[in-house]
């Protein structure tokens, strides 16, 4: 299988540049009478004096413009997307089909509960499935994303300690390999971040952890497997250290795709877990969102969960607001129902065997790719020698960079020419010239081999002093972008009205 790719290159103007005075692309029902009078009845001090300068284009112009833009965009539906920690697996179409029903799209969150029993049952069962998959007692479906789940989880930690009268705990411990959202969420929730280093196996240095914990420790935030794709095999010891110090254990579920059916965070000693439905449960990521980040907790944290929770009294489903110890609300309404519905559908499609198989194949694919890539000149697989990876692994291009000047960034840009979305580059921070790759279970061996060939080709080009890696990409809709220019005050342009301040 040869990888070839040519992305559309439309040089599409901005939609405002297509504007022609007087055009209207879409007509809503017009007002039945005296529309002018209605506008004139708006008190002058409240009335807009000029219409907003929005595009004036026809419907077909809008459709063509955005269809062309879609052709200048890359998604899982187009090709391999092994972006580490992002779990870009195939999103089954039936999930979207079901979510296109007016029975979900046109439901209002404040409808009488008697009219929404179907969606409430869906939410209730989705929470139940998720709780069982991660080994937690109770789930809130409300958080809108992984980071939002983290914030919610850390607020639950905070509520727990405060409820116990324990006000001194003002630190959260986070490994140096953690996702950036972990320290950001902890800091937002009012905590000081204490970083612990990784050992030569890429795992938490338990000695360092022992000296980091104490009466100020509110908790530890960690992924398992970690961002190197390595299972923290001392997780029970880690949990013991944190719990003995009176802290709680937070599980960042970004890497859950590695262990479904194999091990549950609840059995590892975790107290709080967030789950990224847009990763493990294949809800489409939409170019950045929406996602959903349900949070599960053990029984000792249940009382603090956000309101409302979805409950069942044996005959009907309902929303429970009467939770006196709840942290309150983390967003409006009851969660991203349309995303949760898709994840629920995904879970039913796969079932107990299917989810476990998904994790198995994801791990198989990652290890296969890691072993093949590490043998290619210029790449290496630092940390955890001889330890199997889980769903992802971190390759280092540091030899390649030292020996040829071709960096991880450039390898990534060159991979674009083959229609391969590059791995996450320069993360985690503990690996030089890092390329964090997560092929997922939905790539075939043929695709893996083709992708591996792509990496090999870049290595050959680099060592043969070809210009290709340094001048790539060539087959995308634009060539290498000047990102510095987008950030310089003089050239920065963040809206079409701004114009470039100087070119």
């Amino acid at each position: 299988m040869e990888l070839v790719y040519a992305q559309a290159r439309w040089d599409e103007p901005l939609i405002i540049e297509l504007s022609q005075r007087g055009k209207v692309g879409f007509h809503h029902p017009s007002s039945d009478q005296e529309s002018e009078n209605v506008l004139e009845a708006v008190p002058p001090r409240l009335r807009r004096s000029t219409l907003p300068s929005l595009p004036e284009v026809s419907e077909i112009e809008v459709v063509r413009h955005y269809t062309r833009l879609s052709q200048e965009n890359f998604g899982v539906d187009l090709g391999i997307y092994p972006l580490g920690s992002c779990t870009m697996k195939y999103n089954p179409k039936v999930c979207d089909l079901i979510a296109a029903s007016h029975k979900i799209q046109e439901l209002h969150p404040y409808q009488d509960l008697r009219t929404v029993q179907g969606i409430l049952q869906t939410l209730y069962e989705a929470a139940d499935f998720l709780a069982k998959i991660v080994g937690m007692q109770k789930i809130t479906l409300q958080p809108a994303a992984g980071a939002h789940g983290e914030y919610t989880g850390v607020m639950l930690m905070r509520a727990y300690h405060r409820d116990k009268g324990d006000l001194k705990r003002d630190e959260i411990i986070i490994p140096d390999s953690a996702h950036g959202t972990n320290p950001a969420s902890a800091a937002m929730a009012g905590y000081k971040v204490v970083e612990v280093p990784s050992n030569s196996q890429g795992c938490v240095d338990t000695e360092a952890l022992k000296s980091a914990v104490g009466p100020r420790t509110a908790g530890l935030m960690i992924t398992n497997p970690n961002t190197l794709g390595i299972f923290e095999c001392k997780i029970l010891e880690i949990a013991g250290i944190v719990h003995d110090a009176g802290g709680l254990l937070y599980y960042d579920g970004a890497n859950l795709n590695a262990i479904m059916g194999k091990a549950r965070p609840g059995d590892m000693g975790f107290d709080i877990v967030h789950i990224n439905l847009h990763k493990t449960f294949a809800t489409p990521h939409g170019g950045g969102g929406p996602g959903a980040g349900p949070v599960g907790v053990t029984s000792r944290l249940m009382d603090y969960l956000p309101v409302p929770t979805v409950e069942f009294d044996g005959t009907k489903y309902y929303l429970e607001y009467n939770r006196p110890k709840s942290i309150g609300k983390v967003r409006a309404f009851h969660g991203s129902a349309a995303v949760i519905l898709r994840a629920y559908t995904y879970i039913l499609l796969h079932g107990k065997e299917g989810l476990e198989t998904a994790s198995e194949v994801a791990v198989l694919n990652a290890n296969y790719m890691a072993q093949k890539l590490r043998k290619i000149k210029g790449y290496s697989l630092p940390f955890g020698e001889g330890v199997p990876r889980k769903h992802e692994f971190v390759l280092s291009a540091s030899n390649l960079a030292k020996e040829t000047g071709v960096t991880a960034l450039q390898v990534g840009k060159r991979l674009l020419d083959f229609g391969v979305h590059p791995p996450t580059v320069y993360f985690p921070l503990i690996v030089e010239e890092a390329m964090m790759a997560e092929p997922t279970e939905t790539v075939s061996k043929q695709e893996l081999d083709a992708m591996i060939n792509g990496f090999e080709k870049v290595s050959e080009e680099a060592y043969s002093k070809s210009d290709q890696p340094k001048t790539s990409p060539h087959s995308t809709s634009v060539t290498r972008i000047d990102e510095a220019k987008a950030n310089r005050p003089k050239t920065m342009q963040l809206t079409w009205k701004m114009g470039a301040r100087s070119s």
Partner: protein
Amino acid sequence: MHQMLGEIGVSTIDDLFKDIPDTIRSKAGLAIPPKMSEMETRRHVEGLLSRNLSTRDILSFLGAGVWPHHVPAAVDAIISRGEFLTSYTPYQPEISQGMLQAMFEYQSMICELTGMDYANSSLYDWSTALGEAARMAARVTGRDEFIVPHYIHPERLSTLKVFCEPADIKIVEVAQDNQTGSLDLSGLKRKLSEKTAGVYLEYPSFLGFVEGSCEEIAQLAHKNGALFVVGSEPISLGVLKPPGELGTDIVVGEGQPLGSHMNYGGPLLGIFACKGDELLRQMPGRIIGRTTTQDGKQDAYCMALQTREQHIRREKATSNICTNEALLALAAAMYLSLLGPRGISGLCSTILERTKYAMEQLRKVRGVTAPRFDSFHFMEFTVNFDKTGKKVSEINDALLGAGIQGGLDASKYFSELGQTALYCFTEVHTHRDIDMLTDKLRQVLEA
């Protein structure tokens, strides 16, 4: 598979999980149902959903933060395209120009609509955008009090508290006149101090009335060194003076009406916009910039000002947000392009006309006061039933029996309003729908 295992140097898949300590290995498998075929799954899930009565099955007059609107077919068609739908955050801009350009267009249109300088490319929803705005105001001013109006959306207030508590920001409430809804300016003056980081107002308000003294409020806030934060439903800005012309520093809002379905309350689209470069540097969320290729030959788009964000700054970031609501922002960009200036103005006319008609008809029902507040309203207004001797909950029960979902019971949030419900009227409600509502109400109340 055997070949793959051979390359790895193991003999079974299980070998790849041997590093998980036996004590925590799941032995029994997942305690969830066995897999189903696509057909079975679809039948099952659609069976569940069929137990819902959607706002197409019943006539609903609920708004209150998520509003019923017609979504143009073109919007749903384009956002369903796999190239957009199945893409991730555009970390590799060269292969993600489509989404990046669409986000740039979204930001530009939000600025046009709100009259602000800069918009980010989305937050989760209005309530979390408000939480971020309060924290941003506190960061910028170095102060720790945030003033909110009495008639704020209760769920927004609850979310705001969860965002403010760990930052030690105190939420201070200012009264609104319970006849006109106007913010109590002398109360505001009393509560403004050198501690005030920001003053927040909803425009239009949660209860549909529109504050007429925004400029004065902005001036009072600014005179005290505080920021003025406005929360808006965006369709209303097709007819209302944009917050940017009222002295607003930060605008937040809910973008769902711009081409997204209600979806039982999520996903939603958090709007966030601000004025001036100082605030820009403190803004949460992703921002897309326009640039060129390195050879200068092509226009191009990429993420800008990333040093504010968590993946670079970690605990020093302006927010922890990573995943946002890009697909809904794309829908909003398409929606605003389809309507254009005349379309959105026309939509506002329709909404105002329906609202006016509904007030006139409801008022004719004996004992009904509509609106409860003496003010200009947009799209939503309060209906008071005190003189009917019936509770909103009883009335809504009876209406539901006739296939009508009445307005939100506001009396459970604001007891001083008596038996009051918040009703919403948009382009989806015809005169016949409104007549049906008033007929049924008359039957219910006169029974």
